């Protein structure tokens, strides 16, 4: 029998999401942080560790009035916050700090900020951007034609990801896009970067979220139901040049991070009640299902198209609607974590009945980095 060591005791998103023209990016961080503190009844004076990505962690500390003894500014794109959970857990275990605040804020839509959230890569700029591959829709999508040829993935299967996730989004009052979709709607939407239409690409939103972590032994002192980490999770990186991926049909970073997380948690796939796979574009849940080992390579598209991940299916996936329908600020990983926490607390508007274990898997950059967390409602296993 293992006992949980680390718990998430506070979790919240920004008061508003989608279009938030009255808050700067720094302000979105703070709004999320204050909401998470209120969620667990702490104040900034109780926080001694701070982590954020795409933004200077020291700025957030100063803006909120926090004097940290531990900082993490890992910024590898949207999965950074999932990596922060892992790093924070290690820091708390090592006694470097006791109570960590992880914040995310991003003015992705209103652009009330003066910097981009991810470090530019020298090689990416000089050997990829010069070919007009400047934005995620023409970079993240590049491997997919190869996967379609080699693994038999179809356009209809990719479109079905957006359709199924819209079904989940319909449960969430805070989701941006809630109207039902059909595969034909997705395939006939405006072309962005063949074979990707607009409805296969994520939303562009303003918003933020924050988490508060501490040791599991303190977890029952808080007003909300604790959510425990099962194992320390996983992380990896392959690098920011999508053209240099080892294999266009599978993500090495996904495989390494996922295996690390599953091994650390001591779980098998049948233990997983609820799954979040970061979906900046519709192909990512397909890669994720395969690379995490839920299905065999080449079977991810059919698995989703057959309905196994939709409401009532055997593997509820992206139950907030994901980056395609819920919101996507630019670094979406925080929102995947928030839905994982809601599911483990039993309070998601799309609650999976009796769910006790949630895997939250994220991508950073364009298949550049990855991080995976295993959350559970149980304090021993």
């Amino acid at each position, binding site marked *: 029998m293992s006992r949980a060591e680390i718990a998430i005791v506070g979790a919240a998103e920004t008061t508003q999401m989608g279009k938030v023209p009255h808050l700067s990016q720094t302000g979105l961080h703070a709004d999320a942080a204050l909401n998470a503190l209120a969620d667990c009844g702490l104040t900034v004076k109780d926080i001694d560790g701070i982590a954020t990505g795409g933004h200077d962690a020291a700025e957030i500390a100063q803006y909120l009035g926090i004097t940290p003894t531990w900082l993490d500014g890992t910024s590898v794109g949207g999965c950074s916050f999932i990596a922060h959970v892992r790093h924070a857990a290690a820091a708390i275990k090592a006694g470097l700090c006791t109570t960590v605040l992880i914040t995310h804020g991003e003015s992705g839509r209103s652009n009330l900020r003066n910097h981009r959230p991810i470090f530019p890569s*020298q*090689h990416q*700029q*000089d*050997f*990829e*951007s*010069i*070919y*007009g*591959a*400047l*934005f995620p*829709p*023409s*970079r993240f*999508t*590049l*491997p*997919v*034609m*190869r996967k379609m*040829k080699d693994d038999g993935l179809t356009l209809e299967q990719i479109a079905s990801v957006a359709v199924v996730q819209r079904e989940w989004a319909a449960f969430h009052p805070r989701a941006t896009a809630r109207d039902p979709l059909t595969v034909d709607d997705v395939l006939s939407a*405006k*072309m*962005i*970067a*063949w*074979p*990707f239409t607009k409805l296969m690409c994520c939303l562009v939103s303003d918003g933020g979220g924050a988490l508060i972590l501490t040791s599991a032994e303190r977890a029952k002192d808080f007003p909300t139901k604790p959510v425990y980490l099962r194992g320390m999770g996983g992380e990896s990186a392959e690098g920011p*040049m*999508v*053209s*240099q991926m080892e294999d*266009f049909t599978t993500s090495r970073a996904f495989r390494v991070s996922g295996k690390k997380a599953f091994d650390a948690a001591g779980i098998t796939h049948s233990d997983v009640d609820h799954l979040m796979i970061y979906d900046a574009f519709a192909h990512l849940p397909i890669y994720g299902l395969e690379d995490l080992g839920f299905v065999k390579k080449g079977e991810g598209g059919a698995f989703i198209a057959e309905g196994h991940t939709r409401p009532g299916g055997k593997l509820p996936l992206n139950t907030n609607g994901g980056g395609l329908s819920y919101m996507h600020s630019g670094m979406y990983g925080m929102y995947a974590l928030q839905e994982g926490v809601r599911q483990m607390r039993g309070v998601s508007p799309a609650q999976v009945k009796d769910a006790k274990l949630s895997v939250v898997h994220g991508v950073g950059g364009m298949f550049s980095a990855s991080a995976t967390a295993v959350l559970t409602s149980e304090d021993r296993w």
Partner: protein
Amino acid sequence: MSQKLQPTVYPETRFYWDGAKAGKLMLQRCTPCDRAYFPPRPFCPECGSRDVTVVQASGRATLHSYVINHMPAPGYEPPFTVAAVTLEEGPRMMTNIVDCPADPAALTLDMPLEVTFETRGDMAVPVFRPAKGGAA
């Protein structure tokens, strides 16, 4: 319309851009691994050896994957093709496919390609076109 982007030249990549300007696609080859690699760096990404040489690539490649970009990009008229091509020597690189419609009907994976060079100010960048005369 704004100009297409120019790469920044660093000491480690100068040979590559000098080569492109002279109409040559340059790679590096690790002596211990006997293997070509890309993008440029003064050591082998496989084994870390600094025993590497600069070699000229044949310019023959095949189409590994692509997207047809419909979004604006500086100097480009959408739609245009962003591709990953596999060089005959092994490495893969991002590029554009030119002298070929930006149309899925004209872009078949694994089709043979050959390098050509596109002038950008006082520089040139390698791009690829369908190979003349069949298989690469």
